[in-house]
């Protein structure tokens, strides 16, 4: 399973979000490859899920992957609720 973590530059926020997502995945015992990307490149990358802030997620809604908007990237519960519930479906 591949998860893209996306922000405007692919440097700051997306890396923080990736670290948070990896921690949540680990606690749920789910194996996945989480990759950081900037918005421009993300459109051309393959993935099963995309996590990003709401305004970035909005710009990726046409992507093949399931796009999940995370409001507060420090909030592990939000990530758990939105992402893990999608994965477990």
């Amino acid at each position, binding site marked *: 399973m591949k998860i893209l973590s996306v922000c405007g530059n*692919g*440097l700051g926020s997306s890396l923080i979000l990736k670290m948070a997502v990896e921690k949540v995945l680990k606690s749920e015992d789910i194996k996945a490859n989480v990759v950081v990307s*900037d918005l421009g490149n993300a459109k051309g990358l393959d993935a099963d899920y995309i996590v990003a802030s*709401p305004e970035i997620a909005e710009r990726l809604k046409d992507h093949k992957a399931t796009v999940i908007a995370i409001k507060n990237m420090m909030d592990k519960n939000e990530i758990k609720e939105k992402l893990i519930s999608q994965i477990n479906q």
Partner: protein
Amino acid sequence: MSVLNFIVNEILSQPAMLIGIIAMIGLIASQKKFSDVLSGTLKSILGFVILGAGAGVLVGSLNNFGPIFEAGFNIQGVVPNNEAIVAIAQQTFGRETALIMGFGFVANILFARFTPLKYIFLTGHHTFFMAALLSAVLGTAGLTGVPLVVMGSVILGALMVIMPAIADPFMREITGGDDIALGHFGTIGYVAAGLTGKAVGNKENSTEEIKVPETFEFLKDSLLATAITMIIIFLIVGFKAGADVVSDYSGGQGIVIFSIMQGITFAAGVSIILSGVRMILGEIVPAFQGIGEKIVPNAKPALDCPIVFPYAPTAVIVGFFASFLGGIVGMFLLGPIGLTLIIPGLVPHFFTGATAGVFGNAVGGKRGAAFGAFVNGLIITFLPAMLLPVLGSLGFNNTTFGDSDFGVVGIVLGFIAKLIG
């Protein structure tokens, strides 16, 4: 002896290797598996080499820009771009930058552990950029070797806790909580915006009462925004300079196509640099966070500026426009007072202007967002112009550091060096 010689002369003199060693130490300290340590180390080294390749692409475009601009406007013009100036700086200060960044992380953790400023600064690219600025400014001031690295690392570590601390009162207003701090070296501009907002506005009249069209969403794609800005700037400069001047650099190609291709080439260079930076930091920052959490468990994470955008999406747009306006007004003021022209870029005004807008709005509502971000726009126009002389030979590349704290730190250190010097 020959082993020591090999380490000092061969490995430590090669910045890419140094970056790899820093990543390796971080990965080993966070108890990663051998295969993860190996791949993480290699990725960081690859990232540094990619960064250099990006600089090569971008410099081609900037070397055309500088002389065409001067022919058209009879004054030096500079496009501030952190990625560009840092990538170029690596050709001269790569070793110093790598060491200051590595020890800067350590200094941050020590400051957070032993002072009341409990912040772990997780915006790795800004740590990297500040390390490059410190190398250039301290190097130009005459420091070399161990004193340069020690001084640079201590200053960097201090900035990594001081900047989040001075932004914190505003961050509490913005987030309504106390969980996250801002870790971004545009903080002086944001605090100035906050103070301005407090003075002129009323936080009850929030920007979030207004709805804005979504036309400007493209700005969040910073690569696209960079390409568009640079195409427009090249077109204006090209037409002002005229076809004769342009053809000297374009090999006979017309102004329109040449300008479009140069703008796109610049953006392509930035994109390559960004992917290099991403590879360098993709391993180092998580390792740093893990170690930081262990040593300073009660520290607050200091995060990149878009963290505040969801709290006031309209202030983001208001802030961008007001900051950009400040950049244009500032640009017209620079010429008459004899400073180098700083051309406002969409990307720095978007990220720092938006953040300034959110700061201004939190304490001063609509007026606070607009006036605060306008002040930020002026600041990120004047500071880069005043920074150029203290960068030494690095100041002659038609680009410079964009965000406010780089300017303040560079100018203050340059001033101190002159007093002592």
